[in-house]
């Protein structure tokens, strides 16, 4: 839970005085989407590796600790993808030109060229995509990132729900943490799966009931601040020359690689 809170809700890196942090969140999001589309479209592993190098360089210019960045990007999704891509290098799953053979537990397995290059391309694509998404996430304040979605003309109901939902998640995580601590302090030992399932379901039910009660309070708070059915969102984004220059650079990379 603490890892989750630290990694998701910390704006520490977004507050640093680095290159990506200085950009207008709207321009930054658009350029990162261009990079993601580029990563999706390319069939060349060399281009993917170059884009991965760009993401690492951007992290360095943005004063993100390299160890932290690599840990955030490689742990879980790329490692999981690496794990599931390994069988694909063998002829059982990807037939083709044999490269070499390996013996595992008495079984002779053939590694094929299309299998190996396909798996390498897959991993490179996944890790590069994840790196750009993580970079966008850690260098942008979260409430700004959610506000940026308005430029894509997303219906108001989604944008408003998104902003409110983000705040509720904080509250709910606090409630869950306290409940978990209370259960742990009372039970203290390992419990049987059936009992554990009942505790989880009871916690979810209790969370729903608290949320339901909260609805009325939140609505009253909204009314007292002048809510009349149409949400009003402040727009304080400002794009400077460096933002347009960065957009031009990203567009040039996009067009050149294509």
């Amino acid at each position, binding site marked *: 839970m603490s890892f*989750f809170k630290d*990694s*998701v809700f910390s704006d520490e890196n977004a507050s640093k005085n680095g290159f990506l942090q200085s950009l207008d969140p709207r321009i930054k999001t658009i350029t990162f*989407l261009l990079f*993601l*589309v580029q990563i*999706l479209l390319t069939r060349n592993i060399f281009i993917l590796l170059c884009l991965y190098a760009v993401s690492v360089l951007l992290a360095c210019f943005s004063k993100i600790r390299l160890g932290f960045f690599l840990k*955030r990007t490689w742990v879980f*999704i790329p490692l999981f*993808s690496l794990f599931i*891509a390994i069988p*694909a290098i063998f002829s059982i*799953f*990807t*037939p083709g030109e044999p490269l070499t053979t390996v013996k595992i537990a008495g079984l002779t397995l053939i590694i094929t*060229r*299309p*299998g190996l290059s*396909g798996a390498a*391309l*897959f991993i490179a694509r*996944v890790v590069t*995509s994840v790196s750009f*998404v*993580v970079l966008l*996430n850690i260098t942008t304040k979260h409430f700004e*990132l*959610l506000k940026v*979605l308005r430029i894509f003309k997303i*219906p108001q*109901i*989604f944008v408003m*729900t*998104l902003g*409110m*939902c*983000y705040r*509720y*998640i904080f*509250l*709910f*995580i606090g409630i869950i943490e306290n409940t978990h601590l209370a259960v742990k302090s009372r039970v203290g030992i390992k*419990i049987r*799966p059936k009992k*554990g399932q009942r505790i*989880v*379901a*009871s916690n*979810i*039910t209790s*969370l*729903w*009931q608290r*949320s339901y009660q*909260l*609805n*009325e309070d*939140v609505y009253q708070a*909204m009314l007292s601040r002048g*809510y009349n059915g149409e949400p009003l969102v402040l727009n304080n984004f400002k794009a400077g020359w460096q933002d347009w220059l960065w957009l031009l650079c990203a567009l040039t990379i996009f067009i050149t690689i294509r």
Partner: protein
Amino acid sequence: MHIPDGYLGPTTCGFFYAVMLPIWAVASKIVKKTLKAKQVPMLAIGAAFSFVIMMFNVPIIGGSTGHAVGGVLVAILLGPWAACIAITVALVIQALLFGDGGITAFGANCFNLAFILPFVGYYIYQALTYRAPAISNRRVLAAGIAGYVGINIAALFTGVEFGLQPLLHHTAAGQALYCPYGLNVSVPAMAGEHLLIFGWVEAIVTALVIKFLQKQDTNGFPPKTCGNDTVGLNAETTNGRSL
């Protein structure tokens, strides 16, 4: 079941964005039309609730744990269209802030988790609880079945989406460009783990939460939340109470 970036090719990603756009538009229109101003926070609460459900690890036999998605539960509590919006919002937050689920694969993730899962589960639940009293074991059983079937159908769609990638995108030498496994591997893999493990987690959580809600109906739940005049758009009312 969240598909990361890089697993699906551009055609599949574009196709699912195109499929989801009208669904989001209809969901937004229906919910805006039927949602009273007073229930606006409920939608955000539903989204946060569906986000948080995924953080509960449920103990399963053998000492292992798994987590539920809660899509069917949210659909039963809010109605399928409101659940579609709530789960979409939860998926946006997961993709942007947690990196769980890709941005290019966002349309496909929403199709599986915010459309297929709540709609299949919700209508199965409605069919199985036809004319059932609010406090009846049939509703608990129906919620479990709806959760199990809903998550398995969503997993089947995910498996098919993965399995189509080598067919849709490959080089002349047969090298896969995206997910490297065909339908013969991806469908059994996705279906197997959900039929054997995660489907049961979803079923247990959905059924037990409905059972607890039936027992602890302290704040008038479920009628006010799920009635036809509120967030839950199609919930059936029985004896002045609906579920």
